[in-house]
């Protein structure tokens, strides 16, 4: 396969795009639910919908500018410095990317749960705005007025910049020809799936699709984690060897025999066509080290543990030892406030927020009504 498709890039773009689309779609459906009924003011509804779209597109534009600048700096300035220790940077970026993909990846599987969460967030945003209605600072009034612009604006921008950073970081060392195709297809796939979710098609088949894509995402992440460790190890080896490592291709001397678990003199993902896709998707290494093999397995063990914990928490409402852990953390000065804040939110529960919100809404509306008189 020629160098035209970087699989990691595709999945990252797809993932970020989907997230942005979901948020926008939740916003739109929320608006529709609240204002889009036939007996309501269609003009305001349409204006607000336009705001949402404008915000989304604005966010994308800004992210493209930021991302363009980032990539420009990255390749213009950075490439020279980084190319000398490419393995080091590759290792670091892969490590960061793995962590973030890992944290966000499972949320993708909870798409329905995420949707609910966003509904609450939007409701809360409305509540907060009415709560602060009496403060008449310009900023707050502006932000109140354009909430339906700001929210999607920030969301799309954030996801977009994230995507750019990942794509830039992960693909260090990939030839530029591998970019356009996965970026475009990633965006298209994200839009398509987002649309399907918005339209609320067959929940089961959407979920199966999400599960499949998440599985692939985690296969990629595991491979990236393993590759990150491998790159860091290789960096230290290559540093000591000097420029000679490149001379060796994938033959003897291109790897540290003491660390090697297996080595085949072929199938090098860095130089042999096709194997790079194998590496991108499944973390293939023609020269596996103890570090890369152990990290790959430990990654999966970690994922399995995390999923077990989350499933356990969902079923029982709490994790074993959680109370003890919280109690312990409360005694640590630095963590105290953080834990308290967390506690406040989790204790509140959605119902509490919503009830408060109701009250604020009611008074706000009353006051507004009075103000109109």
């Amino acid at each position: 396969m020629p160098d035209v498709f970087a699989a990691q890039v595709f999945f990252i773009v797809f993932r970020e795009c989907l997230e942005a689309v979901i948020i926008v779609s939740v916003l739109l459906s929320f608006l529709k639910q609240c204002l889009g009924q036939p007996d309501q003011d269609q003009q305001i509804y349409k204006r607000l919908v336009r705001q949402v779209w404008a915000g989304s597109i604005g966010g994308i534009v800004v992210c493209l500018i930021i991302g363009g600048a980032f990539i420009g700096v990255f390749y213009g300035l950075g490439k020279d410095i980084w190319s000398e220790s490419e393995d080091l940077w590759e290792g670091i970026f892969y490590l960061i990317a793995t962590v973030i993909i890992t944290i966000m990846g499972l949320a993708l599987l909870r798409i329905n749960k995420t949707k609910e969460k966003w509904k609450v967030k939007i409701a809360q945003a409305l509540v907060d705005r009415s709560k602060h209605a009496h403060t008449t600072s310009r900023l707050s009034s502006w932000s109140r007025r354009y909430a339906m612009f700001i929210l999607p604006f920030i969301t799309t921008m954030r996801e977009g910049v994230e995507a750019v950073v990942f794509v830039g970081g992960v693909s260090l060392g990939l030839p530029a020809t591998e970019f356009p195709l996965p970026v475009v297809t990633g965006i298209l796939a994200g839009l398509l799936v987002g649309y399907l979710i918005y339209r609320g098609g067959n929940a089961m088949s959407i979920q199966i699709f999400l599960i499949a894509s998440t599985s692939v995402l985690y296969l990629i992440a595991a491979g990236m984690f393993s590759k990150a460790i491998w790159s860091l190890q290789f960096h230290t080896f290559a540093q000591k060897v000097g420029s000679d490592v490149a001379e060796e291709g994938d033959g003897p001397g291109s790897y540290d025999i003491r660390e090697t678990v297996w080595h085949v003199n072929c199938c090098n993902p860095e130089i042999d066509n096709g194997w790079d896709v194998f590496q991108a998707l499944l973390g293939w290494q023609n020269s596996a080290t103890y570090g890369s093999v152990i990290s790959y397995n430990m990654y999966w063990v970690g994922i399995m543990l995390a999923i077990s914990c989350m499933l356990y928490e969902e079923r029982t409402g709490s994790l074993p030892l959680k109370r003890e852990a919280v109690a312990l953390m409360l005694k640590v000065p630095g963590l105290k406030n953080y834990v308290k804040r967390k506690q406040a939110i989790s204790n509140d529960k959605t119902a509490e927020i919503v009830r408060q919100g109701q009250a604020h809404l009611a008074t706000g509306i009353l006051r507004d009504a009075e103000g109109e008189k």
Partner: protein
Amino acid sequence: MAPWSGSTLWAATILLLSWICAAKTVTYDFNVTWVTGNPDGMTERKVVGINGQWPLPIIEVDKGDQLIVNMHNGLGDKSATIHFHGMYQNGTNEMDGPSMVTQCPIPPGADFTYNFTVNQNGTYWYHCHTDFCYPDGYRQALIVHDDNAYFHDEYDEEFVVTVSDWYHELVEGIAPDFLSVYNPTGAEPIPDAFLFNDTLNSSLPVKPNTTYLIRIINIGAFVAQYFYIDGHNFTIVEIDGVYTEPTEADILYIGIAQRYSILVTTKNSTDQNYAIVTVADSVLLDTIPPTLQLNNTNWLEYNASAPHLQANITVDQASDLNPFDDFTLVPYDNMPLLPDPDYEITVAVNMEVMGNGFGYALLDNISYTAPKVPTLYSVLSSGNLSTNSEIYGEFTHPFILEHNDVVQIVLNNNDGGSHPFHLHGHNFQVIQRAPSYGPTFYDYADGDPVPYDPSNHTAFPATPARRDVFVLPPQGYFVIRFVADNPGVWFFHCHIDWHLSQGLGMLLIEAPTQMQERMSIPQQHLDVCQAASVLTTGNAAGNTENFLDLAGQNSQQSFLPNGFTARGIVALVFSVISALLGVVFIVVYGLSDLKFHNKENPEIAMVIENLPKGAAETTVVNDYKD
């Protein structure tokens, strides 16, 4: 009258003596100790000195002399030996010098006497022959004068010129980085300087209109050097101790351990000094540090007060120089091509990373690994089994030669570097080499190695050149012939000291039966072994009971495993299992999300339902109106 008649008498006695026994005995007492030296003016370092001196004394004898060198190892921390490079040592194999081949390494404090007859003439040198030893300065010229040389009357004076690479660090400091997992290509240590007579920017004072004999020896450890003299051609009259038909040349390529004697006739006028230019063969160097001066100028000094100008080098790189092809030289004795060989050895040079991650050099599949007993002593202690090559161990790479056989060695090069190969105890006829010196020398360097094809080669020369060190071209080959008329254990090895330490050598065990008949080891040699804790009898493994049992022999590193070994398969299977299990977990987790679907969050629904009619609308609308 008395003095006159006395000296006449003395001269007459000398004449008489030389007529009776034809030779004298020359004795050198060498106390070998560490001294300091700074030949390039850049770094003062420890060097191996003799009798407190460095540069070392040149050994000079006349053809036919008995040479005795009493060596005392006063280094204190290092074993050493002396090899008299190019000496045939016919009948005195035990005086040849390579450690663990014909003797034990001489440990600190021990004495060793080398004693042999020099029945040959020309330009030679002596150097330490233990691993990682002679680059520390333990090397110098050995000149055998010959009043009967055909060119003896053609020159007025002679110079000895040594060229050498030079390191600022002791070999023991360089070696660990060289043989290391971090040097997989086996990149040879880069020298810090190139010396000319163990110094830089020196002059050979000459008179106009005079012919000089210059004996040039590359006594370095690694780098070959080009040699030419600005404005002068010269005549080659000897290579490696073999007189040649006088042959005009302008540029020489002097591989490690090679020697050339040239006649140079000076110009008429004395208004200018001429540069003697030496150019290091930079192709051999993996990197060229900016501080390393590859070209060096010394001078044919016609006029000490005239300027000594640095040579103007006109080529971009050393390999652009077009040196004289030593293959084309004709020995002065016109010895014809030896008949077809009785015995042929074909081996190839390979450089490989072995199981410990170090780079090694191999002939075929064997990297020379010193045995536990010096091979000469194994020959002498093995009785009838001495003709069985097995007893010398697999990793000394032994070949048994029959007495007086014509032996042919075909050496192919699977490596991209050139290798100056040296055979102890002989010079050999060079009957084939490809590519030849000159612009085509690197023609095979890219692409696949080209081995010698016995059915398709150029005609062998009728009177082939003979020498004892011959340069093997990159990925090419050479073929040499000699007569096995010198019973002994003879090392055939690459003379780049780094490559020898990587194992680029093999042993020719020549006429072991005759060795047992004719040779005995001096007691002192055996005492040295005892001091060094090295066995003096037994096979390569030191086994004296059963010479065919080689259990415990020193062996080379294992080869790198190729592909998946057991642990690789286990690791791969485990990784696949973890990945599959992980995916199962993800699927379970993902499917359990479906319970959220369409289960409208009751609280949300409540918020929206309980909003006073149009509340959300109002809020938003009001914001709009603000």
